[in-house]
C-alpha cells in the first residue's frame, strides 16, 4: 500500500519461468511429493487397509456429490451460495427418521400386502420413505426460494447472501429447539439391515456376529446403493440439462435472464425448478447419509453442506461433472486424512485443498476460465 503514489522505479519483470516464479511452484511440488510419499508408503505397507480407506472415501464422496449438485446448479443459475442447502439435507434425514420411527412408513407394503416378498416389500417401503423426504425437501426449498430469495433477486448480491445465511440459521436454531429436533444425537433406525461382504481370498457375506478378518476389504450394500443411485442421478441430470427443453431453458436462464424471458421462458419457474431438483437430491442424500452413518442431529447438515459446497467450487461451480469430481476428491481427502493424519484435521485439509486448487486454477477443475463482470 505504500506504493499508492510512489514514483515508479524501473520495474524488474519476473518472467514466467524464472527462478523467482518457480519458488511458489516449488513449494506446491514439495507438498505434492510429500502427500504422494505418505500415500504410497501406506499403500505399500498395508494395501488392504488403504483400499478400505479409498472405499470409505468413495462412499462419503458420493453422498457429497448428491449435495454438491444442488449447490452447483443453484449457483449456476442465480449466483447465490445457498447456505441453507446443507440444512435442507438435514431436513431430508429427519423426515425419513420420523417416517420410519413414528409411522413405520418403510414397512407399509408388508402391512398392506402381507404375502409380498419381504425384500421387495422393504425395498418399496424404503423407496416410499426416500420419496417422501425428497418431496418435503423440495417443498421446503421452493418455499425458501419464493419467500426469502425471490424478493431480493434485483437487490445487491450481498443482501441475498446474508439472507441465505439467515435462512440457514433459522432452520438450524429452529431445529435445535427441544420440541423440534433438539440438539441431541439421535440414533437412526435403518429401514433395512446393512449387509457387508468382505473380500479376502474370495467374496464372503459377513455373518451376524462374525468378526471381519484383519486383512480384508469390506463392502456394504449401502455403499452399492449410494454409488448406483448417485451415478444414475448424474446421468439423469446430464440428460436433463443437455437434452430436455427445461434443461436447455435452465442453461439459457443462467446465461441471460432478460433474453430468456423474451423467449417465453418463465424465469421464476425455472429458478424454482432448479432449487427443487437440488433439494430433491439433497433429501435423497440426507436419507442415504443417515442410513450409512446412522446417527443424526440438527447440525448434521452444516459440515457435509460446507464440504459439498467446497466440492462444487473445487470442480468448477456451475459444472455438474465438476461437482461430482470435486466431491470424490473431497471424500478421498477426508477419508485419507482421517486415517493417516488425524481425524479432526480433516476439515482443515478440506479447506487447504480448496485454497490451493483455487490459487492454481481460480475457476476450479472443470470451470471455464471466465472474466469477472465489472
Amino acid at each position, binding site marked *: 500500500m505504500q506504493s*499508492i503514489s510512489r514514483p515508479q522505479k524501473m520495474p524488474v519483470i519476473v518472467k514466467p519461468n524464472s527462478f*523467482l*516464479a518457480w519458488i511458489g511452484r516449488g513449494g506446491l511440488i514439495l507438498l505434492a511429493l510429500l502427500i504422494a510419499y505418505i500415500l504410497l508408503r501406506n499403500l505399500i505397507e498395508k494395501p488392504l487397509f488403504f483400499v478400505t480407506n479409498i472405499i470409505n472415501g468413495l462412499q462419503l464422496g458420493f453422498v457429497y456429490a448428491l449435495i454438491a449438485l444442488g449447490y452447483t446448479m443453484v449457483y449456476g443459475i442465480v449466483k447465490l451460495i445457498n447456505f441453507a442447502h446443507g440444512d435442507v439435507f438435514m431436513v431430508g434425514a429427519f423426515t425419513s427418521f420420523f417416517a420410519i420411527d413414528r409411522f413405520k412408513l418403510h414397512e407399509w407394503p408388508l402391512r398392506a400386502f402381507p404375502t409380498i416378498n419381504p425384500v421387495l416389500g422393504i425395498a418399496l417401503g424404503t423407496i416410499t420413505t426416500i420419496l417422501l423426504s425428497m418431496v418435503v425437501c423440495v417443498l421446503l426449498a421452493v418455499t425458501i426460494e419464493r419467500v426469502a430469495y425471490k424478493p431480493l433477486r434485483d437487490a445487491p448480491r450481498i443482501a441475498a447472501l446474508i439472507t441465505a445465511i439467515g*435462512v440457514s440459521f433459522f432452520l438450524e436454531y429452529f431445529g435445535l429447539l427441544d420440541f423440534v429436533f433438539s440438539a441431541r444425537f439421535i440414533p437412526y433406525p435403518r429401514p433395512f439391515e446393512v449387509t457387508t461382504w468382505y473380500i479376502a481370498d474370495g467374496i464372503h457375506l459377513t455373518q451376524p456376529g462374525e468378526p471381519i478378518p484383519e486383512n480384508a476389504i469390506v463392502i456394504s450394500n449401502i455403499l452399492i446403493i449410494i454409488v448406483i443411485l448417485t451415478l444414475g442421478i448424474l446421468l439423469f441430470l446430464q440428460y436433463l440439462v443437455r437434452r430436455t427443453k427445461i434443461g436447455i431453458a435452465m442453461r439459457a436462464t443462467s446465461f441471460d435472464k432478460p433474453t430468456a424471458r423474451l423467449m417465453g421462458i418463465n424465469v421464476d419457474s425455472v429458478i424454482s425448478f432448479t432449487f427443487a431438483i437440488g433439494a430433491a437430491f439433497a433429501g435423497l442424500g440426507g436419507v442415504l447419509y443417515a442410513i450409512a452413518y446412522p446417527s443424526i442431529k440438527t447440525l448434521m447438515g452444516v459440515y457435509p453442506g460446507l464440504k459439498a459446497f467446497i466440492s462444487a467450487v473445487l470442480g468448477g461451480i456451475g459444472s455438474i461433472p465438476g461437482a461430482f469430481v470435486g466431491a470424490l476428491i473431497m471424500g478421498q481427502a477426508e477419508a485419507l486424512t482421517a486415517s493417516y493424519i488425524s481425524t479432526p484435521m480433516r476439515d482443515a485439509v*478440506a*479447506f487447504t485443498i480448496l485454497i490451493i486448487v*483455487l490459487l492454481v486454477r481460480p475457476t476450479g477443475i472443470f470451470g471455464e476460465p471466465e472474466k469477472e463482470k465489472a
Partner: protein
Amino acid sequence: MDLSVLLSFAKIIAVIAYLYGLFWIMGLKVRPVTIAGKTLDLSLAINVAGVVVAFGIIQLALTDFGGFRILNEFDTGLLYQACTMTMVALGLNLIYGFNGQFSLGQWGFYGIGAYAAADVTYRWVNGDSSGLIVLGVGTILAGVIILLVGRSLSNLRRMPVLSSFTLYLLGALVSGYVAVLIGRWVSPLLNPLLGTNLEPGPLAQGFWLQIIYFLAVVFAGIFAAEISFLFGLPVLSLGSDYFGIATLGFTIVVYTLMVNSDTFLPFPEMRGGRGMIGIPKLTTWFWAFLFMMAVIVSMRNLIRSSYGRAMISVREDEVAARAMGIDVAGGKLLAFVIGSLFAGLGGGVYAHYIGFLSPGTFDFLIGFNPMIIVVFGGLGSMTGTITASFGWIFFLEGMLRDVLGRISPQAPSWRYVLYPLTLLLLMLIRPEGLMGKIEWGFLKIPVVPLRDTKQEGEVA
C-alpha cells in the same frame, strides 16, 4: 411488563445514548476563546476531557459503594463483551463495509488473538516467561522480515503471488524458529522473578502484571495481523465469493487447530476441546475502554486518510480504482490486515475478561455474528457497527435472555430463532442496514471537495 424488563430496556437506551454522547463530545468543535490576550483553541482539550469523563462515568457506575452498584456483575460482563464485539465488528466493517471484501475469517483472527494473549499471561502467572518472549520476539522479527521482503519485492513486476507468499512464509517461519530459540535461552533467566501461581514473584503482580497484560494483548493482535497478511496475500486475489468461502475455511481451520491444540499443536495448557482454564482475569473497564477507543480512533483516522479513501474507491468500483492508479491489491491487504489486528486485540481483551476459552466459542457458526452485526449496523458506517455491537450484546444476551427466561426456562433459546428472522426482515425492508452509511459526531467524515479525493488517488 415487569419492572426489570423496563430496567434492562432502559439500560440499552442508556448505553446507546452514552455512546452517542461520547462521540458527540469527541467531535465537538468550539470557537477559539481569548483569555488574557491569548487565543486558545480548546476543542482538543474538550474532546479529551469528554473521553476522560465518559470513562469516569462508567467507572463510577461499576464501583461498589457498600453493596450498591449501578451496573451489576452481569451488566459489567455485557459491557466488556460489547467492547470486544465492537473491536471485532469494526475490523470486519473495515474489510467488508469499507473495502468490499466479503470475509468470514474475522472470527478466526479473534480466536487467534484470544488464545495467543491468554497463553502469554497464563504462562506468566504460572512462572513461565517463554510465552511473552517467544510471541514478542516472534511477532517483531516477523514484522521486520515481512517489511524487508516487501521492500525487496516491491520493484518486481508480475511476480506470481504464490512465489511471494512462499518467501514471506519462509521469513515468518524462520523468525518463529529464532524466537523459540531466544525464548529457550532467555526465559530461564527471567523465570525466577515470576514466582509461582500461588506465590507470585515481583513481575507477576500489580503494575508489572498490567504491563504484561498490555503487551500480551498487543502482541496477540499483531500476531493475528501477521497471520492475516500471510493468509490474505494469496487468498485476496480470488473473486469475492471464493474469498468468502476461503476465509470461512480459515475460521474452520483455526477452530480445528484449537480443538487439537494439545495433540496436534504443542500447547498442553490449552487443553484442546476441553477448553483453556485459569486465564488471569485481567481485563478491567480501563483496558476494555482503552483498547476499544484506540480501535475506534485509529480506524476513523485511517478511513479519513488517503488510504481509507483508496479503500472505499476499491469497494465502489475495483476496475475504475485500478485505472486511476490505486494499488488495489495493496489496499485490500492493508484493510484485511488492520481489520484482523482489531479482531486479534478484541480476542485478547475477551480472553482476559472471561478467563476461560473453549474452541466452541470460535465455531464458525458463531463467527457469522460479527458479519450480521456489521450488516445490521450498515456497511460502511462505524456508528452503525458500534451501535449494533452494543445493541446486539445488550439486547440479545441481556434483555431478550432475561425476558424469555421469565416465560419458561427453554424460551431463551428462542432468541436464536428470532434473530435470523429479524435479519431476513431487515434484508427485505432495509438491505443497507439500520444506519446506512450515516456517521455521527466525531466519526463523521467531513465532506471533502471532489477535486481533492480525485488527486489523492492519482499516481504522482
